[in-house]
């Protein structure tokens, strides 16, 4: 039996799903995406009206005061239509960081986020995947009592296009061991170069040249907060992957039921039925990865949290790849078309999982944890 909280979360999910299918269904928006003319403005406005953008912000701060389970359903629905948005970076990560920020910064930014007037770009490697390329990162220097001078180079900025703020990690030379985040206006970036991932997600790189900002824009980040934000990022990506995996399994099953070959519909071939059964199993495994991440967020022990994160992301990688690749294969060549949903599914799933680091890295990290645990003799299940 579902708890009242679970029922409320599903009602929210239904609202988001209805809104997304009406405003940005995959086949309706694909032509505009083809020309680069598609804008998230209408989606963003609608998410604000539903209350999704202030979902995890406490009620006294103007939000809905919801938790990870509600965040999951919103991300799942965004995933179901294979739409890349700055929802995770803005509504989950930036909001969480802002709750630890100077009250004036909170008052300035949180209402804008909740009302859909502000979008926040983040650096992928701050919360997930390590990225290569030019040595990136921002360095800060205190100027007087209230100001900070910042410079450096940022790469793999997600959704910079359309955002008005950038949230990035920041190091001070005099406190290299302390972790900070800074909220910068996008205008502080120069030499901006832009690109996009195969799933359409806009990415950018840019330089910050001695930008002087008020010290209140800098947030001190505890180890606990950094870990929670990593988990939220992973949860957002995994939840979107879960929604997209659900949709891909469904459209592939629909296709097999309707497509005739060799005198019968494809769904009558046992070989294909069994492959679909394996996808169904992967679908449930992905949901369980999400559940593990939600559980990690509710776990106090930081080692346990990290262990659960590595496990969930290691498992997620294999299952989402299986569904993404098989959805194309089972559709035949039509599934490999850019304009086809199955063709859009694989790149989106690949980006979502790579944002959190590749699965081998997580398996490797998990193996180290297991290796270190061996001499302890304490081998209970993790929940």
């Amino acid at each position, binding site marked *: 039996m579902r708890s009242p909280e679970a029922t409320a979360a599903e009602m929210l999910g239904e609202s988001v799903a209805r809104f997304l299918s009406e405003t940005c269904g995959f086949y309706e928006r694909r032509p505009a995406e083809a020309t680069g003319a598609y804008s998230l403005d209408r989606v963003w406005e609608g998410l604000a009206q539903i209350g999704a953008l202030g979902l995890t912000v406490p009620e006294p701060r103007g939000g809905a005061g919801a938790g990870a389970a509600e965040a999951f359903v919103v991300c799942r629905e965004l995933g179901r239509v294979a739409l890349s948005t700055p929802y995770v970076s803005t509504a989950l990560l930036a909001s969480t960081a802002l709750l630890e920020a100077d009250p004036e910064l909170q008052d300035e930014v949180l209402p804008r986020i909740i009302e859909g007037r502000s979008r926040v770009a983040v650096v992928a490697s701050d919360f997930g995947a390590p990225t290569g390329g030019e040595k990136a990162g921002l360095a800060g220097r205190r100027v007087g009592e209230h100001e900070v001078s910042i410079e450096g180079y940022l790469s793999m900025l997600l959704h910079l296009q359309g955002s008005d703020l950038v949230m990035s990690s920041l190091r001070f030379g005099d406190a290299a061991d302390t972790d900070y985040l800074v909220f910068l206006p996008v205008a502080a970036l120069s030499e901006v170069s832009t690109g996009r991932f195969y799933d359409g997600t806009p990415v950018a790189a840019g330089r910050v040249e001695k930008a002087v900002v008020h010290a209140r824009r800098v947030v001190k980040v505890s180890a606990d907060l950094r870990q929670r934000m990593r988990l939220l990022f992973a949860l957002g990506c995994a939840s979107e992957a879960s929604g997209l995996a659900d949709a891909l399994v469904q459209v592939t099953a629909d296709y097999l039921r309707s497509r005739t070959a060799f005198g019968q519909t494809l*769904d009558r071939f046992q070989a294909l039925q069994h492959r679909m059964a394996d996808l169904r199993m992967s679908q449930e495994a992905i*949901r369980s990865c999400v559940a593990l991440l939600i559980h990690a967020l509710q776990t106090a022990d930081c080692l346990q949290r990290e262990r659960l994160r590595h*496990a969930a992301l*290691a*498992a997620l990688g294999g299952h989402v790849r299986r569904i993404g690749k098989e959805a194309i294969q089972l559709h035949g060549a039509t599934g490999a078309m850019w304009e086809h949903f199955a063709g859009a599914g694989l790149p989106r799933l690949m980006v979502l999982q790579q944002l959190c680091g590749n699965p081998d890295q997580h*398996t490797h990290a998990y193996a180290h944890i297991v290796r270190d645990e061996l001499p302890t003799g304490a081998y209970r299940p993790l929940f």
Partner: protein
Amino acid sequence: MRLDLSAEAKAMAAEAREFFATALPDEMRRHVVQCPEIIPIELQKRWHRILASRGWGGHGLPAAAGGTGWSDEVHHAFLREMALADAPRPMLYGLRMVATTLVRYGTEDQVRRHLPGIISGEAMWCQAFSEPDAGSDLAAVRCRAVREGDEYVIHGTKLWTTEAHWADALCGIFRTGTGARKQEGITFLLMPMSARGIEVRPLKLLEGSHEVNQIFFDGVRVPVSERVGDEGDGWRVAKYLLATERLEIAEVGRSWSLLGRIKAVLAGPDAKMRTQCENPVVMTRLAELEIRLLVLDATERRLVLDGAEALRAGAPLLKIEGSTLAQDLSELLLDITGLDAQVWSKEYDLDTPQPVGAPGSGVAGRLFYNSRVRTIYGGSSETMRNLIARHDLKLGQG
């Protein structure tokens, strides 16, 4: 999406853990660890009496049927602790399958007559479903039950009947008619193993163990009062029972326990194991298996918390991954044990030292070879995939 058990279920888990820590005899635990697939009948009954002494003999059954009246979640917590304690499995065929099925489909008289023996642990049951030409295609059963007055008269044979050589009674499905679909005309019957005309012949599994049997029925007479459900409607009853069996075969708790034992072997004093621990391939395999187990555990927990219907619907999925994972764990244990694991050791004769090889290494070979049947019994993985495709995904129905 929560994985945390309710306060009630957590309290049950804590109570059970504490009880098992003191009440489970060492030799019983040793047997489960060394030879988990075959627990001798006397050990099974003894363990059940220990549970019954605590009032847990009818665990998982409704209070009205003489059971504990626990919710599925509380029962899940209890079974998990039992597995983690390396206690013998619950009496699968009697308590978990026949009793549960009788509560759902049996008459009041059947419940009254059969459940007390099951709950007390005195009555050992087996399940006679498969036949020589009806394994995965179970609905093709041909073992015939012909109605004669108030009795059915049975002729034919059943195959792969686990623990029939120990059982006091059996439940089974028999052909009483034909219909448009082969699932029609099947009837679910109960009978004592002492019934005249029943003969049990042992079958040996590839590692040499005697776990399964073939049963021959030569004019066995069963009163109509021992029919569960209507005549010809036994397929529905059998499906319900099988879903319970598949959940048991997933055995997430026992896989955690086996994983712990593999870790203990790796962390043990054997110098060979230190080399294994330094082998990144071995550690990666171990990590991958633990991650799979963690995900399976989360899936089972989600389904338990979603309610009985969700759990039963998810049984094929849990069965495939649970049984495959158990095989893969046993294969890792086999590999790290090396050639010693290939020395044949007699089933459940734990007091006879292995003639050759490291002490205790025999379990690795037995587990590996015996686990081959796990992806076959209770419905093969291929049959489970058929069920998922047809029922979950609605494929092949047009």
